[in-house]
């Protein structure tokens, strides 16, 4: 079809659809900035970055999983269990690196289990990670019980979530570091290519001699590590470890951010850089609606409608 024969809607979809998300981010920033000047204050912008760090880290780390055609519903309880693991190792008097390692190992183990079951037994990821959600939550509740565990007098650990350097919270630096590393992994390493190849056509990737099972396992481990890191940051931020952190719905927020970024839930297409855009889109939306005192019910409806609209426009591209 030549450019001239494009009808109005077709032209719209050809030019607008690929850039729908950046445009949408710009539009909502403009709307919030015009209606509430406080939105653009430095404090608020830093606040947004701090608020999205936890979901953002998980979304960045889940992008590869979704690109391979999978999904990880178990990130919520992994977040809680990692916080508990950190608390108990702090309690036992271990040094900070060991504490962080203990938290991260929770994510690695759960991710490894998810990945091996999905890759080697070839069971559907949505069911596997749903089962894991139930099992990890149960484990977290057995380990931590229903009560809150206060993390007191641990300045080094608290620094992760509440400290700041050069005017920015430490958690934002961690988020940025994770994002940069993952973007480099996607662009500069074979893993990035392989993940896309598996999502496009797993059989073809395997027949061309790639170790697809190993790669699939690895992406779930990365996802688990991201959830664990988020758990460490959260427990440090609120000085508490609790077995019910990362409640039901956390995983859906994370998936929504990834998918808003244009990663196809069927696998193949996807970009970590665009996931960041999805994260900030949802974060700005939440923040702006809170500033404008939009009631929670309208917020939920708006969130659903906006996700549908953004993806429907993106679907026109195909």
């Amino acid at each position, binding site marked *: 079809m030549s450019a001239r024969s494009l009808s109005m809607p077709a032209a719209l979809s050809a030019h607008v659809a690929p850039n729908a998300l950046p445009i949408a981010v710009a539009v909502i920033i403009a709307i919030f900035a015009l209606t509430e000047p406080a939105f653009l204050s430095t404090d608020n912008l830093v606040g947004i970055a701090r608020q999205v760090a936890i979901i953002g880290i998980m979304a960045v780390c889940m992008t590869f999983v979704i690109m391979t055609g999978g999904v990880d519903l178990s990130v919520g309880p992994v977040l809680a269990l990692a916080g508990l693991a950190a608390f108990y190792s702090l309690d036992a008097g271990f040094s900070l690196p060991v504490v962080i390692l203990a938290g991260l190992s929770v994510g690695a183990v759960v991710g490894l289990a998810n990945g091996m079951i999905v890759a080697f037994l070839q069971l559907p990821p*949505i069911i596997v990670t*749903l089962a894991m959600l139930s099992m990890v939550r149960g484990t977290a509740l057995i380990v931590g019980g229903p009560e809150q565990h206060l993390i007191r007098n641990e300045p080094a650990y608290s620094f992760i979530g509440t400290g700041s350097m050069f005017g920015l919270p430490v958690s934002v630096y961690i988020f940025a570091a994770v994002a940069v590393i993952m973007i480099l992994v996607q662009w500069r390493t074979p893993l990035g290519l392989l993940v896309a190849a598996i999502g496009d056509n797993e059989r073809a990737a395997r027949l061309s001699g790639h170790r697809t099972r190993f790669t699939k396992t690895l992406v779930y481990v990365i996802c688990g590590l991201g959830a664990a890191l988020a758990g460490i940051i959260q427990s440090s931020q609120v000085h508490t470890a609790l077995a019910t952190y990362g409640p039901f719905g956390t995983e*859906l927020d994370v998936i929504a951010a990834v998918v808003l970024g244009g990663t196809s839930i069927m696998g193949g297409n996807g970009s970590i850089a665009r996931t960041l855009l999805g994260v900030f889109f949802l974060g700005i939306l939440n923040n702006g609606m809170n500033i404008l005192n939009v009631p929670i019910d*309208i*917020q939920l*409806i708006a969130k659903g409608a906006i996700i*549908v609209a953004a*993806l*429907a426009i993106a679907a026109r591209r195909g």
Partner: protein
Amino acid sequence: MASFFRISAIVNMRSASAALALFFAATIVFFCVSAPRFATASTVENLMSGFSFVAILAMGQAFPILVRGIDLSIGAIVGLVGMIVFDLSLIGQLPGYLILPLALLAGALAGAVNGVLVVHLRLQPFIATLATLAAYRGLTYAISGRQLVPGLTTTPIRDPWLTGIETYFDVGGWLGLSRLVNMPWVPLSFVIMLAVFVVLQVLLTSTRFGRDIYATGGNHEAARLAGIRVNNVIIAAYALAGLCAAIAALIMVARFTTATEALGAGMELTAIAAAVIGGVSLAGGVGAMFGPALGAFLLGAILIGLTLQGVPQFVQQIITGAILLAAVGYDRLLSVRRQRRLTAASTAAT
């Protein structure tokens, strides 16, 4: 050859159902032996009254899965329909016989919206229903009569048409069996579940719509080329899931004589679990109503049994997850075997 394939598919489905029934029986026997007070009328009564609506949700969930989709919003639809009933009954003062059809209609409509998003906006079912999960839950808060008229929060729903759903029948007494053994009373919700089961099963196996569902789930493109209006079939599948969610909501509202904004939260995952345990394949086109219904009661029996054994609730969560894993693992095993047999048959034929 074609008939051979069909027969082997049916035999496979039968054997999967038989295996599930056998596993259910084994579970019951295990708890009867090991759990104190499991083999009593009250356990059966708890199972029937506490899990009939889960079975209805699971059967509804089977339809989107059969057409290769999924519906994450049914828990939110339960909440929405529950709040509509609350509003119509307590604020609108409408009679129950009007509320019942309106509630069912609302559920079916909410489901149909999911179908329209999937078909016409070409959204992935997982994402479309994830978005409506948020939207329906938000709508529930928006129309919440508890917040519009705060005085109503403690007012129970008393309409006999609505609360009548929570009725128990002394079937054992009528049959005269109660003189011999202590018989459980049968809740109306269980009877409703049976009715839903019969209607949906007949719909699936004996009507053109049922054939269209299997054809669409088995091979979307082939079904379309065969002249099946796949778009309408898919929308109808989601509408049925919404309708089942509305029935479940009515049962729950009758039980609690009220509705909260959080009614049904997270229930979609239980329903998906029951459907998958019941042999409904996420790849589409495989499954029936018996499996999801029994799957729900299997989950229920295990939860009740473990509770009576004194197993803490947290451990129960772990065991439930393990069972779900085992069920998909078993399903996978069956399909691998099916594949092997088909390959063997086709090589033998050539």
